[in-house]
């Protein structure tokens, strides 16, 4: 059991996340235990290109980052994270010059910048990308608007290809490009003032995105009433923010947390809520229907909000939404607007899967297949409302917003 715990901790450690050699054989690690523990983190971190390259080994980088940020907090983990945050930037700055991903002749790498931002556990991936892209504009050597735009486009493309499974990263990059470059003032100004304007807009956008969680938390306060029971699935920083603010506002409510297998994100959330003195009950994922009659509302976050108004979120959201729908309980989604993506999945398998290793604690026979998909798609008809920084929206407004943003 002790070995189990250490291994589980190892999985959640940032060094694991950043080690791309490890990810080639995730099951071996799960099965083989300590034997296949990867080389020390320092070498991993010295690796110049931390891109796990999700296309080749099919493991979603997005979920690794999430696992790193959202795993059960332990002092050990915090120490490691602290070390990583303190240490890696230097390494990466050194490595930046030899980064193969960066275009030749360019001293600035958007990926590195992005990784720097990404290491802040509190910063969403998309916001990190937005900050990184803003830095691209700032550091650009371009002398014409067109050049700058092409450079920006290239940077955003490389960010997007860095992790194709992350919806919010792609959406954030796209939205940034839209928001920043879509200003008519650019046509009338000289290059330098246009550039400063772009930087202004970029920073404003970064600021908006950064503050999004606070806004959502404020908006959703009216939906939490005294004495209510809230079912929460997964660990979402927005949902945590919402609940935190409700607790600060002296609302009386209790929370049911699902366990959130396989990365046990529910445990982390219950941890955080317990710190706030909110009554919490942990449920195993399969106890949702059993306890649904006590629940007044379901709160979930989202990895991405798609054009139909449905959401893509951690595995299990769909079934919770189905159960809640059949029992006429409202399902609320808290999601920042940079997660709005121009995707339209028709069914669960319509999206490219984001795979994630799952540990079962016991060795799995080779012949047994494991469903390793990390997320599912919840169609809009099972969602009641979306709390976003644009306001409280019904699912059908998402498409409205997307059409306005993209067309």
């Amino acid at each position, binding site marked *: 059991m002790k070995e189990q715990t250490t291994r589980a901790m190892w999985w959640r450690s940032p060094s694991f996340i950043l080690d791309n050699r490890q990810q080639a054989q995730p099951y071996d690690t799960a099965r083989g235990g300590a034997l296949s523990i990867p080389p020390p983190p320092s070498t991993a971190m010295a690796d110049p290109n931390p891109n796990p390259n999700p296309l080749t080994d099919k493991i979603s980088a997005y979920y690794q980052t999430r696992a790193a940020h959202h795993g059960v907090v332990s002092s050990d983990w915090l120490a490691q994270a602290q070390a990583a945050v303190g240490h890696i930037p230097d390494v990466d700055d050194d490595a930046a010059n030899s980064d193969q991903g960066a275009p030749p002749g360019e001293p600035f790498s958007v990926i590195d910048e992005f990784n720097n931002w990404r290491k802040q556990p509190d910063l969403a991936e998309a916001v990190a990308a937005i900050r990184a892209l803003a830095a691209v504009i700032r550091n650009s050597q371009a002398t014409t608007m067109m050049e700058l735009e092409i450079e920006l486009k290239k940077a955003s493309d490389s960010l997007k290809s860095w992790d194709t499974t992350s919806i919010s990263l792609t959406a954030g990059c796209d939205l940034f490009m839209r*928001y920043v470059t879509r200003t008519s003032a650019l046509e009338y100004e000289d290059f330098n003032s246009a550039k400063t304007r772009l930087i202004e807009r970029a920073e*404003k956008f970064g600021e*908006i995105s950064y503050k999004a969680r606070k*806004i959502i938390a*404020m*908006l*959703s*306060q*009216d*939906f939490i009433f005294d004495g209510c029971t809230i079912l929460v699935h997964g660990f979402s920083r927005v949902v945590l923010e919402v609940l935190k603010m409700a607790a600060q506002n002296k609302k009386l409510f209790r929370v049911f947390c699902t366990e959130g297998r396989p990365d046990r994100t529910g445990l982390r959330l219950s941890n955080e809520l317990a710190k706030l003195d909110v009554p919490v009950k942990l449920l195993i994922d399969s106890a949702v229907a059993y306890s649904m009659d006590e629940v007044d509302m379901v709160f979930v976050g989202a990895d991405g909000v798609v*054009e*139909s*108004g449905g959401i893509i979120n951690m595995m299990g959201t769909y079934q919770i939404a189905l159960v809640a*729908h059949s029992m*006429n309980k*409202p*399902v609320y989604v808290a999601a920042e*607007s940079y997660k709005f993506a*121009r995707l*339209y999945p*028709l*069914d669960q398998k*319509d999206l490219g899967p984001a795979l994630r290793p799952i540990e079962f604690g016991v060795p799995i026979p080779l012949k047994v297949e494991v469903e390793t998909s990390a997320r599912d798609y919840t169609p*809009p*008809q099972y969602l*009641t*409302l979306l709390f976003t*920084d*644009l*306001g*409280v*929206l*019904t699912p*059908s*407004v998402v*498409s*409205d917003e997307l*059409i*306005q*943003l*993209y*067309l």
Partner: protein
Amino acid sequence: MDARRGSLPVPRVRQVGFFTPNAQPAPTRSQSGPPDSSSPPLSDSPASNSLSPVMIPPPRHHSDNLAAAPRPTSPLPVPEPSPFRRRGADNNNALLVGSYNPAETLLAMSPSSSHVGDGESEETMSGGWFRRSNSGKLASSLPSGTFDFSPVQSTAEALKPNKVQNPVGISVLNNTILAEVSARPAPKEQQPEAPSSSKQPKPKLTKAERRALQESQRAAKAAAKAVAAPEEVATIKSVKQHQTQKKDAPQVAVSVAASERKGGDKSQEKERRKDAPAPRMQFDDKSRVEKAKRRSVVDQTEAKKRVELFRHLPQYEHGTQLADLESKFLQLDPMHPAIYKVGLQYLAGDISGGNARCIAMLQAFQQVVKDYSTPPEKTLPRDLTAKISSYVSFFTQCRPLSMSMGNAIRFLKNRIAKLSPSLSESESKSSICTDIDRFINEKIVLADRVIVQHASSKVKDGDVLLVYGSSCVVEMVLLHSHELGKQFRVIVVDSRPKLEGKALLRRLVAKGVHCTYTHINAVSYVMHEVTKVFLGASSVLSNGTVYSRVGTACVAMVAHAFRVPVIICCEAYKFHERVQLDSICSNELGDPDAIGKVPGRMDVNYLNDVSNSGNLQLLNLMYDATPADYVSMIVTDYGMIPPTSVPVIVREYRRDHLLI
């Protein structure tokens, strides 16, 4: 994005579009009203473009009221031949053929009514002409009863053609007076399809003879009126049964009676018309039908047995008008040959499919614009718009317009109205032509290409796609996906009586697509193996309702029941801000015989002898409405959107549609 952030502290739920009934009620008040894409101003509603009888100017009859009304305003002489050469020739031709009334009146009044040329020798031939065009003359040379109110009642547009004709008539007169032969070759080059009979010599009468003729006609009409008066009180059915006589007295009588009835409160009527949104023609509204009929070019014979629930829709006998209209080709003077050709093609069913019909119509309009020249004391925007309205009403009579065509017409009229007055005539004309080209290109051709790109991204290997009927966009999607090397199977579902799927099937099989063909009866059986349903649409309404070939709703519902995603492919120009809840209030009725008879199967034609019995009504609906609940996705040129976002597109891009 940030602009909205100011007003956030209170939780607000914004809603657009429409919601599925099973959606949870929002816990707070919803602050949004109806989507602001709501009704446009009366003027640019396509209904007012196409179907309102109020707007339809008299296309054919140079009814003498019109000829008489402007008599004081347009003095006779002052011929101005050169700019109106073509038109003059055009009308000269028309004059030859039959509806000679304006010229006649003019001649009668004219002091200089001397006729040079053809003279008596052709009078022998003119007898035949008279017999044929007799009805038209009777109808048009109405007794003075109509004179007093018609100028007031008819709208500005209605008056316009008559004004157009006046100078033309003059120039014609002038031409004849000057004894120029030049008028003769002109019609030939303008109407290449016209048979040689177009050069039939003009029936020349002396003034006295013409007077006598007119006198006798009036007498005959008065008699007929007296006979017909009681009939008007009887049911509309009885009027219908007099189809054969329709052209004669009863119709005149009815119209006179109708207009007399209305004469009293006409100012009130006018007010009401201004306020109310232009209604679509309701064919159970007797007076309106009669009114429209008086102006119509196409003599649609109403079906004897009409389906009761669909009384408000035009129900005509099929297959009779084509020959009639073809023979009338030479009499339809204000009609451009290109318009005429397309109208006949609509009537005959040679052009079908929303895009094809719309493109054909726009190209005909382009031809019209190219050949157009502004008459004197007219402005191009106003006159051309009126002309187009009259053509549109002609098209409507040939076959009811689709909503997409309504949008295209609205676009065209908008472009004409927005023309800068500083432009010269040729510049305006070329600008309109370019606009039409751009509309066809951007809204139809390029839009299709974008839709194909989007939709084929949804086709995966191993898919079984079900298509219904024949939609050109869906066909393009299938072929493109096939070209991309995707491995999929197609199930073509078809239905009687059109069996359009067979043509699609043939083209798909020729390209090597793996196909299955079945009729709609088997759709519930085949649906279990289907992974996606691709459907076309005639138009998409703003509540997400898809208006499409009849049977589409059935396929979509079965697919929904089997949890198969239903994908609608539809260009955004077919989106319409109307809301429709059922297939009854607006639809098109096809030939009822088509469902009663099975061609080539003598053994199953059980209805042959019963079809005349009074208690059988055959209903052949052409379209149906699929509720938004059964639609998973609409693929349009703006991307893939849920059906709830149709009003967003309509709202955001309506201006765009009009201006491009």
